[in-house]
């Protein structure tokens, strides 16, 4: 069963960050080894009752067109769970249990992240804290759903930049978008947490179909392959959470992805900090916009499969300097270069210090 989890301080995000940190110190250790990535495999093959296409083959959802055919009148999460059970030998119960655990990890991560704190590269840190303070002081003007989507995305990404425990969704650098959208929706629109877990199945299922064609990494095709894919997955899941059909979810995913095409990956100093942390907040709202349009009946003119293909082609045409190498874009602005140099200098200094320390220890040993 999915546990109801609320942030301390009631339905709003207002609470004492320090207290949360203390409370979570124990939890960090608790979930350290509980979940070994994927649950253990089953012995033997899944029951033959799961075979659902006419030829008696195992069902593998090969494209969004295929998904539209098999899940048009069904709960898409059921279809994804069946397909994964057949393909990977992991039962639906195991997948749901793992995702319920990951939803918990997301909430815990948000709880820690709201307090802010300096990142490893010292380029970001207080974005979540500032927005949270403004929200609690009722100084925000957007709908609370939007503010929370931004806030939770910033919280997750802040934790990520401090080497905190997060859920990669689908990557760490884009890991704020899906929890930002879905958990804000769960809280603000009073969605049953079990439904959120099902929505995570939708997000994962959509991502797995995209990953059949596209490599999900900034190095492969820029940020469109990370944040673009994340908000596409999130848009499909949010549509599902709000009662949309499978076809509406597919349109939401296409609308979200189409409007991130060409997004480059140009991290300052090669760190997952600038522009990544704030970008996650922007695209969590972008994803909700896509879901809203799709739920109203707006359709993507270009089918989702073709949007994914376009993304892959754009990624191939994208210069190497704009694919995570920190050799273009924001990374090579005057400020970006300055940061890059500082990081290199600090690393060289650390290496020199270590060599000196080694030498000192060696000479001491010799003296003995």
């Amino acid at each position, binding site marked *: 069963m999915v546990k109801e989890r609320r942030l301390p301080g009631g339905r709003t995000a207002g609470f004492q960050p320090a207290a949360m940190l203390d409370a979570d110190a124990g939890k960090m250790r608790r979930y*350290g080894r509980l979940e070994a990535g994927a649950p253990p495999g089953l012995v033997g*093959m899944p029951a033959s009752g799961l075979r659902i296409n006419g030829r008696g083959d195992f069902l593998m959802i090969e494209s969004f067109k295929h998904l539209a055919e098999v899940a048009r009148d069904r709960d898409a999460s059921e279809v994804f769970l069946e397909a994964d059970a057949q393909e990977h030998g992991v039962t639906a119960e195991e997948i749901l249990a793992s995702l319920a655990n990951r939803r918990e990890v997301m909430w815990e991560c948000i709880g820690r992240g709201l307090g802010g704190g300096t990142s490893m590269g010292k380029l970001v840190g207080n974005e979540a804290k500032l927005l949270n303070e403004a929200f609690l002081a009722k100084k925000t003007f957007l709908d609370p759903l939007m503010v929370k989507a931004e806030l939770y995305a910033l919280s997750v990404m802040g934790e990520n930049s401090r080497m*905190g425990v997060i859920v990669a969704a689908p*990557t760490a650098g884009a890991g704020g978008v899906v929890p930002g959208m879905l958990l804000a929706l769960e809280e603000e629109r009073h969605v049953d947490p079990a439904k959120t877990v099902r929505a995570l*199945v939708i997000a994962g299922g959509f991502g797995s179909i995209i990953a059949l064609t596209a490599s999900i990494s900034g190095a492969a095709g820029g940020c469109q392959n990370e944040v673009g894919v994340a908000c596409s997955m999130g848009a499909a899941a949010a549509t599902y959470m709000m009662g949309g059909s499978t076809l509406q979810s597919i349109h939401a995913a296409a609308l979200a992805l189409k409007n991130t095409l060409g997004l480059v990956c140009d991290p300052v100093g090669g760190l997952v900090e600038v522009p990544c942390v704030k970008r996650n907040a922007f695209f969590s709202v972008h994803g909700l916009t896509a879901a809203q349009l799709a739920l109203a009946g707006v359709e993507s003119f270009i089918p989702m499969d073709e949007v994914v293909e376009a993304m892959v082609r754009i990624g191939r045409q994208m210069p190497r300097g704009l694919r995570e190498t920190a050799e273009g874009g924001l990374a090579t602005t005057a400020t970006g270069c300055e940061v890059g140099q500082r990081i290199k200098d600090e690393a060289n200094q650390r290496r020199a210090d270590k060599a000196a320390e080694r030498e000192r220890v060696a000479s001491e040993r010799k003296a003995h």
Partner: protein
Amino acid sequence: MAIRHDRKISILDVMGPVMVGPSSSHTAGTARLGRVAYEILDEDPTELLFFLHPPLASTYRGHGSDFALVGGAIGLNVDDPRIPEAIRIAEQMGVKIDFAEEDLGDVHPNSVRIEARGPTRKVEILGSSIGGGVIEVFRIDGFQSRFKGDSPTLLMFYRDRPGMIHEVTKVIADESINIASLMCSRSGRGKEAFMQIDVDSPPSSTAVGAIAALTDVTEVRFLDRIP
């Protein structure tokens, strides 16, 4: 259509892993590559050498790939909060650690060669972290492989001879276990060879023992899913 991967990534691979930040390809993927070396080595390492492909060598510092590689190689999971401390922990364990840059050829940007040595054994792997924590190990001890750590796998080192595949797969078939994929490579006809068998469910230790006892088999390692 562009790349079609030979295996579909699971829901849990997309919506995960639970990991220590900040980058799934630089932190989670690299930790898993380190973990593969640890699992194949099958003992606590005493020496870990990492040779980073130039693009990774230029970006690894800010992503904590060094902590992650070492963390995995001493057996930590990708979600272990001790990963940021992994180098210190390894040094306390007395492990000798070194990082160097090495051009690994025409491979994914985020690729690394790992040499791990323990008290009695050593292993060398070459692998790539291809995004979202997904890995591909394409060389194990000099033999071509395509190990992704996403299914139970048998790694077998043996002397090339007729009938070997038949004998090994018979042991697996006798356990009613389905083989998802199988690949062999050899240094030469009748010379040292390597077989990678991905199975849908883990074989019993009896079966692994039976394979190890086959004539001309030098060594068998069973690896479950790499967390």
